[in-house]
């Protein structure tokens, strides 16, 4: 049962001016970052994570949550106004959003995006508030073999779902495994340190994150700016706005996308873009005018935006319950949680119930703040994307360096950040996804520790997994996912060959 007393204490913890201001600042920062094409929510969070280390937990973490919520919504602004999704999650909004802008209805599209995003996010956060404790309690009965099997399952799902072809997902996953082995092994012995003292503590997690998600963007955007001047122009009619009739018309699409997005969020590795496209697809399928969806329909915007925002809250459940980040944004939050002494896992709500409920209630407040701020400023929001890149890119460059230095006061970490920035840039060039690398980097130590514990429990016999039905189930499902992903391109090719012959 949820302890309502602890929940009420959590409400009092978060309901103070500093935490609310922090949430507001985070939401504004997130909208700004998300609305600039090229800058991602993950990048924004990665830059600001080191700052939160020096703040109390109920100021630092709400700030990051504000960035998360604001950033995912902010991504829809350039998608609607200039047909360029600010984040991957907003890609499904482009078709209808931009078509509405071309019809002079940009403000309606933005307002529908605000409404659908906030309502879906709010509903899914309520779900998390009441179920997070139960899920973490369920995790308490899991032992080392089950946790090992869940991690294997999560890594495979993430690597197979984030790439078009299996080998690229596996390459990213394995690079994450390899990078995390630098430092000390589970027995306390040095491993892959190459006699470099700075490597003895391993590669800094924050430097790896900032390098991959922020510095690689700085490189890419600088190279683009050198090549050609990027001119952004957005049109916005101040007299255009949505009506209650529009909201009523879009409510079924919002409700369906919210339910679907919430379930997608719980499964590690699928994330907002998939939920957004599924939300868009269901909006088209169930619409009374399906021929208009994709060509400038508010239903399409509502379906896509509700889908991607409903993922936000539930995607944190695997993190809270098992310490397994379901996506890269959760992996950034994991860094902030650990730095604040909040170790995600089965005991999180038992040991830090008040703070955790305060954070969950903060997530709900963030939606209300986002709704108010975005609605009040929807007239002016378009102007965000007109901030010239020559202010943003240099500032982000400096912040990536300070951010990676700040964690350990180490210039070596800055070098690691540069290296991973280059790796991230090359991974983008070769279409290799970054999510499996980051999540494998974070989880390898836990996975290795739990495998070792399992082997000790089974007295050296790996067949012991056969006697643990939950662990065995996850391993079998993982094997099935691997085989399916491996055979999918071959089956597709032979099917295409048959079609061509026919």
């Amino acid at each position, binding site marked *: 049962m949820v302890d309502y007393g602890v929940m009420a204490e959590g409400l009092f913890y978060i309901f103070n001016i500093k935490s609310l201001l922090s949430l507001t600042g985070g939401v504004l920062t997130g909208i700004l970052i998300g609305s600039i094409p090229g800058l991602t929510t993950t990048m924004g969070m990665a830059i600001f994570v080191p700052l939160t280390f*020096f703040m109390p937990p109920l100021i630092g973490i709400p700030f990051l949550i504000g960035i998360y919520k604001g950033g995912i919504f902010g991504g829809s602004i350039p998608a609607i106004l200039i047909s360029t999704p600010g984040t991957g999650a907003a890609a499904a909004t482009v078709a209808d959003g931009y078509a509405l802008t071309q019809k002079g209805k940009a403000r309606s599209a933005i307002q529908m995006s605000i409404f659908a995003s906030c309502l879906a996010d709010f509903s899914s956060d309520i779900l998390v508030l009441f179920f997070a404790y139960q899920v973490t309690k369920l995790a308490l009965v899991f032992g080392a073999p089950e946790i090992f099997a869940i991690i294997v399952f999560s890594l495979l799902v993430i690597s197979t779902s984030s790439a078009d*072809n*299996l*080998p*690229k997902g*596996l*390459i990213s*996953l*394995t*690079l994450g*495994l*390899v990078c995390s*082995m630098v430092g000390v*092994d*589970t*027995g306390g*012995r*040095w*491993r*892959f*340190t*190459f006699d470099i003292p700075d490597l003895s503590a391993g590669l800094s997690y924050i430097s790896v994150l900032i390098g991959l998600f922020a510095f690689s963007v*700085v*490189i890419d955007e*600088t*190279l683009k*700016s*050198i*090549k050609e*001047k990027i001119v952004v122009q957005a049109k916005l009619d101040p007299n255009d706005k949505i009506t209650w009739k529009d909201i009523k018309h879009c409510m079924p699409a919002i409700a369906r996308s919210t339910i679907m997005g919430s379930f997608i969020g719980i499964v590690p590795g699928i994330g907002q873009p998939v939920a957004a496209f599924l939300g868009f697809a269901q909006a088209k399928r169930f619409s009374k005018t399906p021929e208009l969806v994709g060509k400038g329909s508010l239903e399409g915007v509502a379906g896509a935006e509700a889908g991607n925002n409903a993922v936000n809250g539930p995607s944190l459940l695997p993190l809270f319950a098992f310490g397994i980040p379901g996506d890269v944004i959760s992996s950034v939050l994991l860094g902030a949680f650990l730095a604040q002494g909040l170790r995600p896992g089965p005991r999180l709500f038992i040991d830090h119930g008040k703070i955790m409920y305060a954070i969950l209630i903060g997530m709900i407040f963030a939606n209300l703040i986002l709704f108010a701020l975005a609605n009040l400023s929807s007239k002016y929001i378009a102007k965000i994307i007109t901030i*010239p*890149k*020559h*202010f943003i*890119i*240099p500032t982000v*460059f*400096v*912040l990536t*360096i*300070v951010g990676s*230095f*700040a964690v350990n*006061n180490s*210039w070596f970490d*800055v*070098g690691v950040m*540069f290296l991973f920035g*280059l790796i991230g*840039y090359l991974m983008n*060039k*070769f*279409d*290799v996804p970054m999510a499996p690398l980051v999540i494998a980097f974070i989880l390898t130590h836990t996975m*290795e520790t739990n495998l070792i514990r399992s*082997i*000790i429990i089974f007295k*050296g016999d790996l067949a012991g997994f056969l006697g643990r039905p939950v662990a065995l189930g996850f391993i079998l499902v993982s094997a099935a996912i691997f085989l399916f992903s491996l055979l999918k*391109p071959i089956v597709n*090719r032979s099917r295409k060959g048959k079609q061509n012959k026919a």
Partner: protein
Amino acid sequence: MTSKRKDIILSIAILVFALAFIICIPYQTVEDPILGARGYDILNGAFFPKISGALLLLSGVLLVVLAAMAKSKDDTERKPLFEKNEVSRLFFILALGFGYVKLVHLTNYPIATALLLGVMMVLTRARNWLVIIVYSVAAGLTIYYVFSRVFYIPLH
């Protein structure tokens, strides 16, 4: 460059890296004789690196096989992997970063930061010198103030 050629280049790079990694394993991991004596060789520090090395090798082989099986697309996809001067510009950006770190040590944080911001603004096509100077100095000082005075991070 076609995606097929891109995948083949990537797979070769991964295979070379995987081989180098596997060769390093015996030299960069420590075996535990106690674990070995108890029949728990599997628990040694080399066990996970061996699995990772094998997985990396497998991924590289899979990618090269799938790329070899794929049909080449038409010429519309034949853009070079790196455009003209892209590599030199890429290294210039990295050199700017390393140069900045060196400059922080040689001068001080606000001066080095203002210089980096100025150079980056010129690179990203800012053209008004007054704006470049005012923004570089103001942003450099603000970042310095926030990190060193508010968060007590020794930026030197």
